[in-house]
């Protein structure tokens, strides 16, 4: 029988090792798997490369993971935040490396990783500073850059509903990067607000088919990052 459910966030992130690459879903707080991130802080793996659109808020979630010194490199599109200086301080002092990627190129590189496309061309960022070091080639008269797929040892994402096969539904704009990260993670770990039996989801409306998912953990009432930040919370 296929049952991908595990007991708690600790078991869900078990096995993440020093030096691993970890994709973390979310656009700001929407879709950020905060309980999984906190479990990763408890777990303590270091030297991580983290692929996530942003670099966290306040002193919880991804910002707390960065503050804990567990992240060696961030691959993201928008590491600035109005309420966190964690990444900026670590980066300025040379303790964390940054690969800045346009948001659409980031999404497409992650999808490519999940779809077995090793590399593709795009006009985005051609003739800009972010083209530095990239191969350039003309298509249809336009300069394009060669962009390589991104894959990860782990993808940590959040869903609204999962079944025990790992089929997923998301909630509104919290969907963002999660479906493509689920595809690109060698082990994809999902925290879901509700977990249902196979057959409870309409096969027409499944957003992420279970084949892309390895572990599901039920977190009935995920914390809201913005509320934690507003209250000045710190993790741990």
């Amino acid at each position, binding site marked *: 029988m296929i049952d991908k459910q595990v007991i708690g966030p600790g078991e869900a992130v078990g096995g993440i090792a020093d030096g691993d690459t970890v994709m973390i879903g979310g656009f700001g707080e*929407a879709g950020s798997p905060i309980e999984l991130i906190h479990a990763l802080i408890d777990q303590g793996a270091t030297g991580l490369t983290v692929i996530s659109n942003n670099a966290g808020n306040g002193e919880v979630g991804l910002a707390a993971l960065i503050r804990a010194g567990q992240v060696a490199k961030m691959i993201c599109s*928008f590491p*600035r935040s109005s309420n966190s200086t964690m990444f900026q301080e670590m980066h300025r002092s040379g303790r964390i490396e940054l690969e*800045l990627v346009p*948001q659409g190129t980031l999404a*497409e590189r992650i999808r490519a990783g999940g779809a077995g496309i090793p590399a593709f061309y*795009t*006009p985005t960022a051609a003739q800009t500073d972010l083209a530095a070091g990239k191969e350039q080639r003309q298509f249809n008269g336009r300069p394009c850059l060669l962009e390589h797929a991104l894959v990860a040892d782990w993808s940590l994402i959040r869903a609204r509903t999962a079944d025990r096969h790992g089929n997923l539904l998301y909630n509104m*704009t919290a969907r*963002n990067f999660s479906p493509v990260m689920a595809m690109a993670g060698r082990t994809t770990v999902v925290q879901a607000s509700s977990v249902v039996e196979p057959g409870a989801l309409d096969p027409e409306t499944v957003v992420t088919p279970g084949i892309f998912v390895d572990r599901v953990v039920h977190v009935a009432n995920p914390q809201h990052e913005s509320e934690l930040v507003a209250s000045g919370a710190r993790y741990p």
Partner: protein
Amino acid sequence: MNTPVGLSREQIARRAARDIADGSYVNLGIGMPELIAGFIPPDRQIVLHTENGLLGMGPAPGPGGGNPELINAGKKQVTVLPGGSFFHQADSFAMIRGGHLDLSVLGALEVAANGDLANWSTGRPGAIPAVGGAMDLVSGVKAVYVITRHCTRDGTPKLVERCSYPLTGAGVVNRIYTDLAVIDVTADGFGVTEVSPGISLAEVAAHTAAPLLDRRSSAIPSSAAAP
């Protein structure tokens, strides 16, 4: 040099909104471009796209009606209109990069006479760069409008011969709406198609760091810019 008083932020947004065709699919950048949503003429239906994964974005929710998982690219709470849809980032940027959006309206640090846009980084040492979807938008969307103050707070022109800041895209801007004028980027450089009420072309030129062509049509009197 003090910049003369032309249109307010809201008036610039209203002026730009007038040029958006009925039925357009439009992405509005963070900041002044967002104001455009409030000035769409009532006889037109415009579908707003927000790159974090929503088509058919509606206005901010009423008090108590918001949801932290229904946000726009600026991470502000929004609503979804009838006919809207949610999708993931790769699909969202397929809309942008695949040329499906009719218009992207962005802010600017600088716009050059050749259409180059700089709006993502000052390139200052120690500044944390952040690009988001700006480079995807300018490379993929059918038309790019810039909506901006004509000069910075200290009076430095933002419309220049060549950008000094790092580029967001080369040769990507089609039209610029400022407090002083509406300016097209033409093969020959900046072409002024309208000046704001009470502003002279000479004043616009005095606050622009590149040559201006007079492309005003007698068919479109500058008073049409009045709100």
